[in-house]
């Protein structure tokens, strides 16, 4: 059996840049969500504190009005994921990117100009198609023999990681860069507001009185390598991807079933692939968006899979906001740090827990961690569960 080794990781969110920095912020209980102003509206969001000009500079690319924020965030995180690793070698590499909004920030500018009767620039649509964002990141990184974009709503990056793991395990590729990216844009902010699930206050995942989610933005990537590839590159194994599963809830286009059928099936199947018993999971980084619907069905699903002995779990979306397509990759990086540093993160902003279980962590806990599960669920019933294990 070929191991799926994680040898590089990079992340950018409202908390800042780099995996190490994120770990320190999460352990200290710092949140990146803050006041955000847009079109005379004030709301809470996890905004990355750099303009597109600054992001371009940080990524080492020339600023252009036609580069999407999603692509710039992605490139920044991907560069970090590859920074201490060797990619140029005799092994062809693959790149799988998850995104849902792509260049929507630019498409919005076209529509806004049109609605005001002003001349609109059609070239702003150059990155509307999601694959264009992936291609932008890829061409600034190097040569990839296989390039793909996954768009399964909020489970996009988790599915990109899963597909990458399968490409490695099947022997098709030795090196695969996987992850996802999504920028904040009016489209998604207005979208979640129209669904009445955008919390006007700070979001409270897994709180009994939770009101909804705060959106965030960001990107994260993992470099996955086979054993053979590690021998050649000398890159250090940080963690292993040992379990993965993609299932569908098949209940409602946007809502999840009360018992979290899709989530249950995904968690169970991921445990089977990893050949682990539920009790062997030391920490679950839950999807935990802060909406009534998600958190109650995720809790029900975890109880169905793990019984009364729930492993320690928490949602880190109180720190980053819900970063949609990127969330699965951002939380995968958090899971890898959790294994490396021996720390399960605390949930944010709980005043009255949604469960009596002590497994819901209100503060970070230091302990030995062998296996972490990371959940990602999305519109369209898409439910994906990943398991990361110590090397």
């Amino acid at each position, binding site marked *: 059996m070929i191991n799926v080794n994680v040898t590089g990781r990079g992340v950018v969110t409202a908390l800042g840049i780099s995996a190490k920095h994120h770990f320190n912020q999460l352990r200290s209980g710092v949140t990146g969500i803050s006041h955000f102003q847009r079109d005379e509206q004030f709301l809470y969001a996890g905004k990355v504190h750099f303009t597109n000009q600054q992001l371009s500079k940080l990524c080492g690319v020339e600023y252009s009005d036609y580069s999407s924020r999603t692509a710039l965030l992605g490139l920044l995180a991907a560069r970090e994921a590859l920074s201490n690793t060797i990619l140029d070698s005799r092994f062809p590499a693959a790149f799988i990117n998850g995104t849902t909004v792509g260049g929507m920030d630019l498409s919005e500018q076209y529509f806004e100009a049109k609605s005001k009767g002003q001349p609109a620039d059609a070239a702003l649509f150059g990155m509307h198609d999601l694959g264009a964002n992936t291609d932008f990141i890829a061409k600034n990184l190097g040569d990839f023999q296989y390039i793909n974009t996954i768009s399964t709503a909020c489970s996009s990056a988790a599915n990109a990681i899963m597909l990458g793991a399968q490409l490695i395990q099947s022997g098709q590729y030795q090196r695969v860069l996987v992850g996802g990216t999504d920028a904040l844009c009016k489209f998604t902010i207005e979208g979640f507001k129209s*669904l009445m699930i955008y919390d006007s206050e700070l979001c409270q995942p897994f709180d009994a009185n939770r009101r909804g989610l705060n959106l965030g933005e960001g990107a994260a990537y993992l470099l996955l390598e086979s054993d053979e590839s590690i021998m050649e590159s000398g890159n250090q194994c940080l963690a292993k991807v040992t379990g993965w599963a993609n299932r569908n809830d098949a209940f409602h286009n946007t809502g999840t079933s009360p018992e979290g059928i899709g989530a249950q099936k995904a968690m169970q199947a991921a445990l089977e692939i990893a050949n682990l018993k539920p009790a062997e999971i030391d920490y679950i980084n839950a999807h935990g968006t802060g909406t009534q619907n998600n958190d109650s069905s995720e809790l029900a699903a975890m109880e169905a899979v793990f019984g009364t002995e729930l492993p320690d779990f928490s949602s880190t979306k109180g720190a980053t906001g819900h970063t949609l397509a990127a969330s699965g990759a951002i939380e995968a990086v958090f899971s890898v740090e959790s294994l490396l540093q021996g720390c399960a993160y605390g949930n944010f902003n709980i005043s009255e827990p949604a469960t009596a279980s002590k497994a819901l962590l209100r503060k970070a806990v230091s302990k030995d961690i062998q296996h972490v599960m990371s959940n990602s669920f999305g519109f369209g019933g898409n439910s994906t569960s990943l398991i990361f294990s110590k090397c």
Partner: protein
Amino acid sequence: MQKLYIHQAISISTQGFWEGFDLPELREDLEEFKAVDPDYKTVIPVMSLRRMSKITKMALMCSLTISKNTELVWDGIIVGTGLGNLADTEKFLTLISATDAGLNSPTAFTQSSHNTLSGQIALQLKNHGYNMTHVQRGFSFENALQDAILQANCGMKNILLGSADEHIPLLDTLGREMKYEERAIVQFGEGASFFQLSADVPSGIFVQDALVKMKSENQLQEIDSFVTKNKVDKKCCLLITTPDMIVDCGMDRKSLGDLVGNYMTNSGIAIHLGCAYLQREEYNHVLILNANSEAGMGLTLFGHE
């Protein structure tokens, strides 16, 4: 690779509603390339139909008709789309640019997600299996097919594979603003194609090999080495290309552009067309050349037993 058998194919395009491998005569004199609207009510509940955009209706019509013809429960539903639900995206963009902070209807937003197609199929069929959406420009369908091959290698048996893209008038407007040639704009097409694939139950037609190259310097050379590797007799192989191919490569050729128009996932319907030729045993092999991308190429080879 192991063979992946094709048991059913259903497509919607400007050529009509194609069910099965016996196809009606192709119309080669088409001047516009909007897909026909079959009687969606036969498989889509009327209540849901009203709010659905054309891409969703086309994808459901194909996938639900295939599912109706079989008792199988899909282990995986895999969809490729280049641009996704354009009509709903445009609708919501218009809504939010017109009203600054008003309360908007969420319908267009929730339906604009690229995975609406695979999600709706799962929802209508109450299918809890593997569910994936690939969105990689001109290679969206090829990447979905590659995923199906990978999943079959990982033990998946029954797979519903499909692709869909829709046309909206905004594309024509953008094309004109970008100074595209009028002929190219007229050829903007749309359509959907879905297939029942099996890794273990044989049928007459199968996928023999598939290759996607993100960069290819010499298209002819790539084709030659691909057919040689697969021991294909060029005289008995039909080449179906997405746009017109100028250079001769020693095989009979058909171009999709004049038949169904150009859209990012039209290599899906190329496969359906290929199945028809293989069914009639006019050729031993059909090779699909996807040249939708400027830099790369996709090659998919089919054979019959």
